């Protein structure tokens, strides 16, 4: 076993692609690793202490606050960020629904909501409104009042359920 180290090699799979190993400080959070070391700035930093959900990513398919995860903890894991939702130029149904239902204004919380909603629909493809509100209660929005976010998630679920083989 290696002795404790202040700098480490971290390799992750992000949105299906393996990164090259990067040397990071042990204290580097996964959020900063994604943003600074991997250039994926879609994941946002709202509070950096786990209260707001703007930094939500999927770690091995499960929703997680990337500001409360060390990059070192995520070494070897499969990460999904907001950048992984679209299929090339084709928006994910959730992204289309957020656009159509006016579920974003400033957009700062939006990546966290999209990833959390994607996790919800993976686990529960046909949620009720109450289940959507419950699942997304860990994501804070200052602009929209949440009404249209909930509507967008329900609309996306309806669309996905009408189509077989939708991924994420």
């Amino acid at each position, binding site marked *: *076993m*290696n*002795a*404790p*180290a*202040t700098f*480490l090699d971290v390799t992750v799979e992000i949105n299906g692609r393996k990164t090259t190993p990067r040397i990071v*400080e*042990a*204290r580097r*959070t996964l959020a*900063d690793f994604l943003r600074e070391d991997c250039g994926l700035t879609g994941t946002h930093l709202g509070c*950096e*202490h*786990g209260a707001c*959900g703007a930094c*939500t990513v999927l*770690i091995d398919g*499960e*929703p*997680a*606050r990337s*500001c*409360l*995860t*060390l990059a*070192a*903890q995520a*070494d070897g894991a499969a990460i999904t960020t907001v950048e992984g939702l679209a299929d090339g130029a084709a928006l994910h149904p959730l992204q289309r629904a957020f656009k159509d239902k006016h579920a974003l204004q400033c957009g700062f919380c939006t990546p966290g909501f999209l990833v*959390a909603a994607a*996790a*919800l629909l993976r686990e529960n493809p046909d949620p009720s409104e109450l289940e959507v509100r*419950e*699942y997304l*209660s*860990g994501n804070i929005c200052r602009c929209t009042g949440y009404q249209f976010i909930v509507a967008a998630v329900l609309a996306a679920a309806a669309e996905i359920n009408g189509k077989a083989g939708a991924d994420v």
Partner: protein
Amino acid sequence: MKPPAFAYASPRTVDECLALKAEHGEDARFIAGGQSLMPLLSLRMVRPAVVIDLGRVRDLAYWRREGEQIVVGAMLRQRALEQDKALAGALPLLAEATRQIGHPATRSRGTIVGSLCHADPAAELPVCALLLKAQIVLASTRGRRTIAAEDFLVDALSTSIADDELVEQVRLPAARPGTGYAFLELARRHGDFALISVAASVSPEAGRVAIGGLGSAPLAFDLQAPDFAAESQRIAQGLQPPADLHASAEYRRALAQTLIERALAAAARRSKT
């Protein structure tokens, strides 16, 4: 803010964890789910020299049944209580309480044992552990010792763990037919820490409640009579809850009385099904 600099180790076995902790003592902190430790690090309220990641120790990520006991390893995530029906059926009180903890993204990472070790006075799982008279197994290079939850949960954010110890597992009684359990809490917002939380168990012979949100370690009381209204008043009157910006002491005391009575009634109903 960003965490202060520290060295990181990712051992693969329990023995490696114990050796590291013996070497560094109070200068090393274990990280399991990180949902309590990471905010402390980001706010620089703790500055360990070494962080020991339990996440790759396969021997800690388990639960199993041993006779009448459920044994939960240190790395079992809180979400297991939502996703594993067998576990939820064996520990219905914890399953009900876990729905109140944080949010899905924190429960997917946070661990059951980690919440007990952090011992936040308003956290849900320490209340459940105290109600169920859970046993905490502490491991070090000196050996293993088992203590009752009551002796482990000393005060707010304070346990009786030694500087060289790891909580390896917690042992809880499996649900038995004829005993009902209930967990109730009131928080300002769903997922927030509780103003008051109550865990209750009722069987034909006995009743017991544990109360959290008191600003200290949770407290437990065995019922002296099957009169839930009178007992909830008796227990609540004896509490010294804190006053803070969220609620006055009087409000917490009144809230405790109401939640105790409701939790006992719910547990009693469930004991008959």
